[in-house]
């Protein structure tokens, strides 16, 4: 830690890295945490339930309850670790698997023991084809690291006889909806990484078997709960949302990156862990591209599902992007909506037609062609699309668009003026994956 930075309060998942200063090998991991305890399945599920752990991929579903449902299935189960991280502004799962792969793998092995799984599948984001040339070679070197890091960690465990359940790593196509849990199941079974409609994976997942799918970070918390117990887990965070969570913080902050904070930490405090705003902010995007814009007045909002719900919002995954005053939030949102529209899996009418229509309306707003008719049309569209796709992709896009209208409502008056908005030409704060 450099002088002057805030002390990392309640750092758990990242503690090993802070102490070591480099990614943990199996020997480092064992030196710090010791081997995972050999708790029986039922007692692990009970510990996770008592800990109150919820999924860290954005849904916030109680992990213990999900484990219990999968364990109750009649056929041998499967465990799927979701590190496919389709959100462009998220890097936490990549970071975690890079610096502490054995925490995630411990959690996966413990979960497999608890639900009676005979197989673990780790899903990471496939890397872009870097093309040709020296720069591409350098990128190729970097790009290969995540799947390779995890494969190497798995191989180390096998050599050390610390891999009780066969584990494989698969690289999922880098599409936004490929990280949806039914997409992962379909990808593993058929090689098609699009969401499906029908039973949820906990009932019928990989190969028709009950499947425990959870975010990579959730597994790392399981690994710590198994060692230190539910009371320890609850010793930070809030009563209804215990423990810590990883947040990827980017945009106008001094030290963009992945930070860890107890759930319940106010949004503004999480920004401070990333160095704080580097310039005056007009809004913060919380929860990624299926999330919501927050006005500066809401920076005191605690990062708990209930606090967000009380404000009419959803917390979503740990992603924060700070939007500086010099940016145009409408143009930024329009660019993201165009990308989200292009990322539909092309399966469901309301999503396939609705998202491009909303994106086109936002493009009009961004280019200052504002009219009452446009607002009326957009309002109507935003009200009919949610809940009508096979996955939640359209719901997220609608949530994002509606929050942009709310939070940038005043700025939209500038767009309605004859002179228009001078900031709208260069949207660049919210990252859009490169074409590949």
């Amino acid at each position, binding site marked *: 830690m450099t002088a002057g930075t805030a002390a990392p309060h309640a750092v758990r998942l990242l503690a090993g890295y802070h102490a070591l200063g480099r990614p943990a090998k199996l020997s480092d991991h064992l030196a710090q945490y010791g081997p995972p305890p050999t708790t029986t399945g039922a007692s692990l599920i009970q510990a996770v339930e008592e800990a109150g752990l919820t999924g860290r991929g954005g849904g916030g579903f109680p992990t213990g309850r999900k484990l219990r449902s999968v364990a109750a299935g009649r056929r041998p189960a499967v465990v799927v670790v979701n590190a496919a991280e389709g959100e462009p502004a998220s890097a936490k799962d990549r970071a975690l698997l890079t610096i502490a792969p054995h925490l995630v793998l411990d959690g996966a092995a413990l979960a497999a023991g608890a639900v009676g799984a005979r197989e673990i599948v780790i899903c990471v984001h496939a890397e872009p084809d870097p093309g040709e040339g020296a720069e591409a070679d350098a990128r190729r070197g970097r790009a290969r690291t995540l799947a390779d890091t995890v494969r190497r960690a798995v191989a180390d465990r096998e050599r050390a006889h610390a891999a009780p359940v066969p584990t494989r790593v698969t690289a999922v196509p880098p599409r936004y909806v490929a990280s949806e849990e039914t997409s992962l199941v379909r990808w593993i079974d058929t090689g098609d990484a699009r969401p*499906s*409609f*029908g039973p949820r994976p906990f009932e019928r997942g990989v190969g028709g078997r009950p499947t425990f799918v959870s975010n990579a970070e959730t597994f790392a918390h399981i690994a710590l709960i198994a060692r230190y117990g539910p009371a320890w887990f609850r010793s930070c965070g809030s009563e209804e949302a215990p423990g810590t969570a990883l947040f990827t913080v980017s945009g106008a902050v001094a030290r963009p990156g992945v930070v860890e904070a107890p759930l319940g930490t106010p949004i503004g405090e999480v920004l401070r862990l990333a160095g704080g705003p580097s310039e005056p902010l007009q809004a913060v995007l919380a929860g990624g591209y299926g999330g919501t814009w927050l006005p500066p007045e809401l920076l005191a909002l605690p990062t708990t599902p209930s606090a967000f719900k009380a404000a009419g919002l959803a917390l979503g995954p740990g992603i924060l992007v700070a939007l500086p005053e010099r940016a145009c939030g409408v143009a930024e949102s329009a660019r993201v909506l165009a990308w989200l529209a292009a990322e539909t899996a092309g*399966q*469901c*009418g*309301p*999503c396939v*037609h*609705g998202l491009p*229509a909303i994106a086109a309306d936002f493009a009009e707003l961004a280019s200052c062609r504002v009219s009452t008719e446009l607002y009326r049309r957009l309002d109507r*569209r935003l009200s*009919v*699309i949610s809940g*009508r*796709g*096979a996955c939640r992709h359209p719901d997220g896009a609608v949530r994002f668009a509606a929050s942009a209208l709310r939070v940038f409502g005043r700025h939209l008056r500038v767009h309605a003026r004859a002179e228009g908005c001078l900031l709208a030409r260069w949207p660049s704060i919210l990252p859009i994956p490169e074409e590949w």
Partner: protein
Amino acid sequence: MTWRLRVDPIACTGHGLCAELLPETIDLDEWGYPIIGSLSDGLLPLARRAVADCPTLALLLERDRTR
């Protein structure tokens, strides 16, 4: 016993036939895809007919467990 209609959005091709048979419950959006409203018990026979007639078997009649 309460029932509800649900659409498999991947199977639905937006024929709109269901909305013709059951306009009380099914509306179409501007692209011709069904928006499902609540189903009163009196409409159950018509709902069954709409389910049977959907050309892609995308319309499903299920017990409503949400209430």
